[in-house]
């Protein structure tokens, strides 16, 4: 967005703020500085980001409105103005209707996306930002029907929003190794905004004294494009002379469920999803575009426990490609473990936390220790590190991106 537009928008917000206060519009938000330094090489800054996040909310018995614009300013003077959410709620006796840009979250897993397929992801900084910043809002109409402690939720998303990937040249760009420099063909990369390209989701959820559970289903576009690869071979030499990569999003169908239930002092969580229509990269030479369509299962089991004031949580996650055949780049079964330990000190002024992803197949990991201190109510300073272990795999591929960072945040 052009800087003039951003400045004009900000000025409008500032000028309108007193009027909004008079209209009993609730204004909250935060200002934050986030500075990260790579610990390898020349100690380059991986990020210097100033964020101003505002929430405007107007609530009445039957209707409410929420608009959540944000502004990111980067050290190279780039300004980014966006809307995390902007929606209107209408509440009736037994059901609610929400229309507009909104984040919709499914499932019981923490830090991984299993049935949580509605809101696409912003992966420009991999999985490092807060998850409310990773999950992007989608334009949708959502109806929730309530009976007792149960809810049926239906979502219609007329406009497809893909995963936001890191820019070319970003240190967070996933590695794709080609024998020669490919040419990209973006002719099929977009999904036209047409009615037949809508996405649909349905969820039943229930909360009770014994357990909570959800059953979900969806018919939607794969947020991540499949890279269809065309090879050009010189018939004389049989040498590879050209590669064309054509990104294309495909339809997926998903059905899944999740639950959480107490087992004495322990909380047991589980979640599983069956995905149909997923394309995987394959190296089988007889397959012309280097992709193959397979269904897959994605599931998780986790335990939460508090020991001597330390909150502990562990999850075991697997992705299992069905009807697997040799040549598919992904492993048939890929396992990941997450671990969280968290404790507060000084009457909740000081928090220590360790969160870790461990990739079992590639023996890689992402270790995320952090310490945060609340100097005053609403004012937090956080120090942390992101340490990548291994040299390949989902986490190990970023082995050169070990970093330390600080976040200074004031909420109002």
């Amino acid at each position, binding site marked *: 967005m052009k800087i003039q537009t951003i400045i004009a928008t900000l000025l409008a917000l500032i000028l309108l703020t007193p009027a909004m206060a008079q209209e009993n519009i609730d204004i909250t938000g935060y200002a934050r500085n986030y500075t990260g330094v790579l610990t390898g090489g020349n100690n380059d800054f991986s990020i210097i980001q100033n964020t101003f996040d505002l929430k405007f909310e107007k609530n009445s018995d039957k209707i409410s409105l929420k608009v959540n614009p944000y502004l990111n300013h980067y050290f190279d003077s780039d300004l980014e103005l966006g809307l995390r959410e902007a929606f209107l709620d209408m509440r009736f006796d037994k059901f609610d209707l929400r229309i507009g840009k909104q984040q919709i979250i499914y499932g019981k897993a923490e830090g991984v996306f299993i049935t949580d397929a509605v809101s696409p992801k912003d992966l420009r900084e991999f999985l490092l930002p807060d998850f409310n910043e990773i999950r992007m809002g989608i334009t949708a109409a959502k109806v929730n029907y309530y009976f007792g402690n149960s809810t049926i939720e239906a979502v219609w998303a007329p406009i497809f929003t893909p995963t936001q990937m890191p820019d070319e040249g970003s240190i967070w760009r996933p590695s794709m190794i080609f024998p020669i420099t490919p040419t990209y063909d973006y002719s099929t990369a977009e999904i036209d905004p047409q009615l037949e390209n809508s996405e649909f989701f349905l969820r039943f959820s229930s909360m009770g004294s014994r357990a909570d559970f959800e059953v979900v289903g969806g018919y939607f576009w794969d947020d991540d494009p499949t890279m269809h690869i065309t090879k050009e071979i010189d018939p004389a030499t049989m040498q590879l002379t050209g590669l064309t990569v054509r990104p294309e999003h495909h339809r997926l169908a998903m059905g899944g469920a999740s639950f959480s239930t107490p087992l004495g002092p322990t909380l047991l969580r589980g979640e599983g999803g069956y995905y149909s229509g997923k394309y995987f990269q394959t190296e089988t030479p007889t397959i012309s575009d280097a992709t193959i369509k397979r269904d897959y299962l994605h599931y998780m089991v986790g335990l939460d426990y508090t020991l001597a004031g330390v909150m502990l949580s562990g999850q075991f996650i697997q992705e299992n490609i069905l009807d697997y055949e040799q040549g598919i780049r992904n492993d048939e079964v890929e396992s990941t473990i997450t671990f969280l330990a968290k404790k507060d000190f000084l009457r909740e002024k000081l928090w220590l936390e360790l969160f870790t992803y461990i990739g079992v197949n590639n023996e890689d990991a992402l270790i995320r220790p952090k310490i945060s201190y609340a100097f005053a109510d*609403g004012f937090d300073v956080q120090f942390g590190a992101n340490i990548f272990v291994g040299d390949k795999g989902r986490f190990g591929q970023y082995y050169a991106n070990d970093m330390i960072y600080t976040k200074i945040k004031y909420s109002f």
Partner: protein
Amino acid sequence: MLTMLTLAFLVTGFSNQSNAQLTGQQIMEKVYYNPSGDDTQGKLSMTLTNNRGEERVRTLTQYIKDDGKVEKKIMYFLSPADVRNTSFMNWSYTDGRGDDQWIYLPALKRTRRISSDGKSDYFMGSDFTYDDLGDRHPNQDSHKLLREETIDGQACYVVESTPKEDDYMYSKTITWVMKDNFLGLKREFYDDRDRLLKVLSIKDFKKIDGFWTILETEMHNVQRDHKTIMKFTDVKKNKGIPESRFTERSMTLGG
């Protein structure tokens, strides 16, 4: 946990029985069984003061409903700003089951069940543990009437309560119970080495909608010299809070 905020052990009504030969057990049962209403709603502010006199303030609104078998509570956090719109719900059962607890974090946009084995944890960084504010049954302790004495102009029974369980967080508590209304006026908490740890004092109380209600209370940690003052305002009793208040929808929508 979070059966707190009712301060049940301190909330009583009048007793018209003869109090002549009451034992410690009988006194604490009168405190426990006196009615406090089927439902309660109101605002709560907590002021946390450290040993340097620095203050932090937390505010929330709460709704409590008790049908005799299940006590349901929901809290909506108003401040500080970084926890605003967070809500917390607790269901506690009289049949001995563990509490069910859920938290809604607006940033994460979902309600999640949390494990509830934290009765010795401190609530929101205050000097109150979840158990301090809970509904501890008198049969969980052995009670002994130590003496009768007058404090703050109120004639009181002084009862020492020793836990029957081995690993309880306090070695004993001593409670001053007002004779005329069986309202707890003061309580001392002793740590596992039998040293005085905290003192709870009731600063203000009155009858609301026919029930004695605590309006201001202070918990002073004498070992660390910090304290928490809780003030209850806009308190209403028996207004018929609907069951739908204690649902996921309600947690998401806020107070």
